């Protein structure tokens, strides 16, 4: 399986060994993100990195494990529950004049979003280029929910992931 190198910037300690070993210069960029168009997937940078900041990932990601309809239904209901909590906490954070409560409500807003996202991931939307995500994007492209729906952006994502 063809691989590409990716760098985790939180772990990178700038020992710069990847610069020395890379045969194509893909690791030497102004924004520290490895240039995938130059990466040949040899893995030398990942092996040389003393901080373990570089991983080799597949050039084309495999599909997420199949999700059963029943599981998706139950998780969707839970995502709705977290959405309702986010909505409630966000409005309370805006309304209140109590400083402590506002911070607590902001924390609940952030937390509800993170849980909702994680549950969405397990409800079939793990990979942005996976079948469920693409099916959703195409359904929205064919039937946009309103006039101000970001149709152009939707088409650009579908185009970007074509063939993955």
């Amino acid at each position, binding site marked *: 399986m063809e691989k590409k190198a990716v760098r985790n910037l939180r772990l990178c300690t700038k020992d710069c060994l990847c610069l020395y070993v890379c045969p194509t210069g893909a690791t030497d960029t102004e924004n520290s993100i490895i240039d995938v168009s130059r990466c040949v997937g040899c893995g030398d940078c990942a092996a040389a990195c003393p901080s373990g900041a570089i991983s080799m990932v597949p050039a084309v990601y495999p599909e997420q494990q199949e999700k059963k309809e029943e599981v998706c239904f139950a998780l969707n209901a*839970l995502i709705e529950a977290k959405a309702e909590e986010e909505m409630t906490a966000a409005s309370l954070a805006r309304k209140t004049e*109590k400083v*402590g409560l506002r911070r607590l409500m902001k924390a609940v807003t952030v937390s509800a979003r993170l849980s909702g996202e994680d549950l969405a991931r397990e409800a079939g939307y793990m990979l942005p280029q996976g079948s469920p995500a693409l099916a959703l994007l195409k359904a929205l492209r064919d039937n946009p929910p309103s006039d101000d729906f970001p149709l152009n952006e939707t088409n650009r994502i579908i185009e970007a992931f074509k063939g993955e």
Partner: protein
Amino acid sequence: MKYVCAICGYVYDEEKEGVPFSELAESWTCPGCGAEKAMFDPVQETAEKETVSAAAADDGLRALSPRAMSMVFSNLARGCQKQYRPEEEALFRKLSDYYLSHSSEGAAEDEKELAALVSAHLKTFFPQAEKAASENGDRGALRARLWANKTELMIQSLLSRYEKEGEAWLENSRIWVCSVCGFIFIGDRLPAVCPVCKVPDWKFELVD
């Protein structure tokens, strides 16, 4: 007798501590994660699981609300971020923002309504999701449900403590959120790892 924290699993052993659990002050909190005393259950007691009605699964059949759609898309944006694809990440953020701007506003008058919502969700959607995930052997779904359930219990505990102690409690306390699982920690010193998802403390973000 031993008591275990429902959120982080910390065990209070009466024999070792020398103080019966029931004699601990009501203001006592879990040394592992800061949860209230009420979050502890006796270890021996095998809690009888509430039976879950299958009918409730119908709730998931509805199309997702705009805010839930916003969550789906902000999650896909994160998926792009993990793959170092900033352009697609920004496009998914646009979709997430679109749905957020079309979401309803909350009508709750005070935080007690939020607490009631959290308690209701803990009794319904969480056990239903656990049932569906375990019946289908979906360990990924079980994992996400478990993390969400523990962070939900913590939210319940924090809201209950706020109701008792009010602003005075939060005045000089720092509030942190685990950027991975959403666990909320209130206190001066973060635990070395998140009590729920076990990531190191630098993954927590301060709320101001």
